[in-house]
């Protein structure tokens, strides 16, 4: 019994890391000159930096059981504003960035208003907000892609090279560390997870449920604002990239919740998920060269991993039900499961 638990523990909690190792070995043997190079490492790292930030952005509201579907639109408008204000409105570099960030924060405040004050289901409220922000973006740009700014400082913002890595990777690291500290080492994180676990019980324990839900949405949109500015510096102010990042960000957060501390949305799990998927996709692309791989791979991986975790949860629940007083001793592993946020889309009718 004890033995089987510890074996499962490895597979459950660190399956992502095992998979990562498998990818590295398989593709390393297959195409060593392409795959096993520092340039591959550098390119995966910076290509996924923005996705990683957005994964953290959705993770924070998810921890308290709230969806933020406006991240795609927010990161997009932030990128477009940061770029077009410089080239179109001839604003300085820093004022343009400031306006982009403030806009993102305002979107988060508005999200919070709709979710907390008006009580709209977060899935709907943030979806509506995403659409409205998209419309604002069309107004601001007239649907023509702004010219990318060309200043050296602007380019260096995300592209400055440190030991081969673009500096955007360091920004990701900073955001990850900050989110990890906030969620795992501060009262704020405790409150968010408590709200996500049982909103009413948290309220009855004196947690300011509304305040923290609101703050989580503002935190999410603020990270999106930063990610948008960096994306713009990295790739130019594209009009459409945001929507394409929405699903990968959620996929990473949900995949991440099957890792390290299964059943709990967590920062490092999300980061692992982002990079494991990217490594797999990169390797397969080297081998086959087809374009649809990334979508196929991400989707299949998400369904497989989350499906496996749900199945594990069912079997471990059944085991709990059979034993009336489960004698789990000390810090045994929690069952692998997925905490569906309370206002998951299935509950929209409620």
């Amino acid at each position: 019994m004890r033995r089987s638990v510890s074996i499962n523990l490895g597979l459950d909690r660190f399956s992502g890391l095992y998979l990562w190792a498998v990818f590295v070995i398989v593709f390393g043997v297959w195409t060593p000159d392409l795959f096993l190079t520092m340039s591959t490492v550098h390119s995966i790292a910076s290509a996924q930096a923005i996705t990683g930030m957005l994964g953290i952005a959705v993770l924070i509201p998810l921890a308290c059981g709230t969806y933020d579907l406006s991240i795609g639109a927010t990161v997009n408008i932030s990128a477009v504003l940061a770029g077009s204000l410089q080239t179109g409105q001839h604003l300085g570099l820093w004022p343009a960035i400031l306006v982009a960030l403030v806009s993102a924060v305002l979107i988060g405040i508005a999200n919070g208003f709709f979710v907390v004050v008006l009580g709209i289901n977060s899935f709907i409220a943030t979806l509506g907000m995403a659409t409205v922000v998209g419309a604002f973006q069309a107004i601001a740009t007239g649907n023509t892609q702004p010219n990318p700014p060309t200043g050296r400082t602007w380019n260096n913002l995300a592209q400055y090279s440190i030991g081969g890595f673009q500096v955007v990777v360091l920004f990701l690291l900073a955001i990850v560390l900050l989110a990890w500290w906030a969620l795992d080492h501060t009262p704020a994180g405790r409150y968010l997870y408590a709200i996500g676990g049982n909103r009413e019980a948290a309220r009855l324990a004196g947690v300011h449920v509304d305040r923290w839900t609101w703050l989580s949405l503002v935190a999410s949109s603020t990270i999106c604002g930063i990610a948008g500015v960096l994306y713009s510096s990295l790739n130019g102010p594209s009009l459409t990239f945001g929507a394409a990042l929405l699903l990968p960000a959620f996929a990473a957060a949900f995949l991440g919740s099957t890792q390290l501390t299964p059943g709990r949305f967590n920062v490092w799990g999300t980061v692992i998920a982002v990079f494991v998927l990217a490594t797999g996709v990169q390797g397969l692309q080297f081998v086959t060269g087809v374009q649809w791989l990334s979508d196929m791979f991400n989707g299949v991986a998400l369904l497989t991993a989350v499906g496996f975790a749900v199945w594990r949860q069912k079997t471990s629940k059944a085991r709990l039900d059979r034993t009336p007083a489960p004698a789990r001793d000390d810090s045994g592993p929690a069952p692998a499961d997925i905490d569906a946020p309370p206002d998951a889309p299935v509950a929209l009718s409620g």
Partner: protein
Amino acid sequence: MPSRPAPAATTPPASPSDPLPASLVVSGLRKSFAGHPAVDSVDMTIAPGEIHALLGENGSGKSTFIKILSGYHRPDAGQATVAGRPLRFGSVDASYQLGCRFVHQDLGLVDACSVVDNLSLSAGYPLAFGTIRGGEARRIAQESLRRVGVDVDVRRRAAELSPALRTGVAVARALRRDVSARAHLLVLDEPTATLPHDQVDQLLEIVRQVAALGVGVLYVSHRLAEVRRLADTVTVLRDGRRVAQRRMADLSHGELVDLLTDGHAVAAARPRHAEPGKVLLSARHVRSGHLRDLSFQVRSGEVLGIAGLSGSGREMALASLFGAVMRDAGLVRVDDTDLAPGRPDRAIAAGLAYLPPDRKTHGGIMTLSAAHNIALTDLRPFWKRLRLRRRPEIAETHRWFSALAIRPARATTARLETFSGGNQQKILFAKWLRRRPRVLLLDEPTQGVDIAAKADLHEQIRRAAAEGGAVVVSSADLEELGAVSSRVLVIRDGHIVAELGHDEATVPTMLRHSLGGESGRT
């Protein structure tokens, strides 16, 4: 009642000349949980068309008895036949096939759906080429409602109906025509507990209509007055044993109350309570839901019990004081602080603590660890140099685990859901005790808790009071109230009807006041 002809056989067992077999015959039914008999050698006979009341206080074995009939529990011994055919125990499906139907207090209607949908969801829709024949479905629904004497527009949503009509729809759904399994027995579990008083008559009429169809009715209720008007026969359970099966007409209200309450030993070895000190909590004219007017004071060192049947308004008492639910009116004051309604955070800051009745949905956060649940009420002691320190948190959790004998003793970081009910409840006690609250509000503190854990929790309640706090316990378990309280308030129909001192608060007295005394309410 006079309008209905007396059923063929009200004196069990059914006379041999009766052409119809009895709806239900139960003999020697026995069921123990962990060596503790919940139902002990119970016999019962219900004739077709008979309304049979099942009475007994909490824990007397009523719900176990019903759950055996419904196939949920498998009894240790005994037989049952339904309309002459032997019931195979332990199968919900077998119970249905023999003709047993159940309507629980939670009716299980889909509020957002129309009445016709509610009736058709389980019975199936009439179809033509795979499409619902709306008119036919409505006609069938209308007809099954009319059988039980309910007349509503079946296109209305269930949520729009009055509580009595909703119960009627649930009854009609239970008794719907099913060619493969005719209904012989309808079990109604406390159907009027949450019903406004002016709607009780309407429901009783529906029950009579059902009986007139030749269905035996087993009617479980706390409300003696309505039972006396409705039932032909009555079975009284006490501590799992049948203490009487009688014709209702042969019993006076007083005799019925005596049957329910007699033979109870007054809880032994009740502790002496310290002299009460200053007033810590006062409530003035608090109104919320069924609770019409609650006014009382609790002093330091006191354990105040609140008794009352379900539906009396007692359920709302502590929740509305704490702010878990909004109160409609009234003042609540802790020490010198007036509490804003609906603000648990302020109540906690003022020194209140509240243990909700349902630990799964309101009390604990099942997906978090025991340590995190306990720490949630006050994280300040662990917040040092910009981090929550794990070690002092685990150390404090360990102290509470050993102080309250929580098992398994080393599982401080296991998820709350992995603990047994009693240990979960102890963990939730710890979560509040660590704040050293001025006033502890405990709603059903030992519901679903084993006997040993119950004794531990009672000890904690006494200790909290002895250390200068005040405790208010609201419980359906009268023995518990008798065991821990220095004073008991009894709530009936939303008002306090009695205040019993330490020595008066015996189970029979509390029950008498809860039920409405000797004279009854009619």
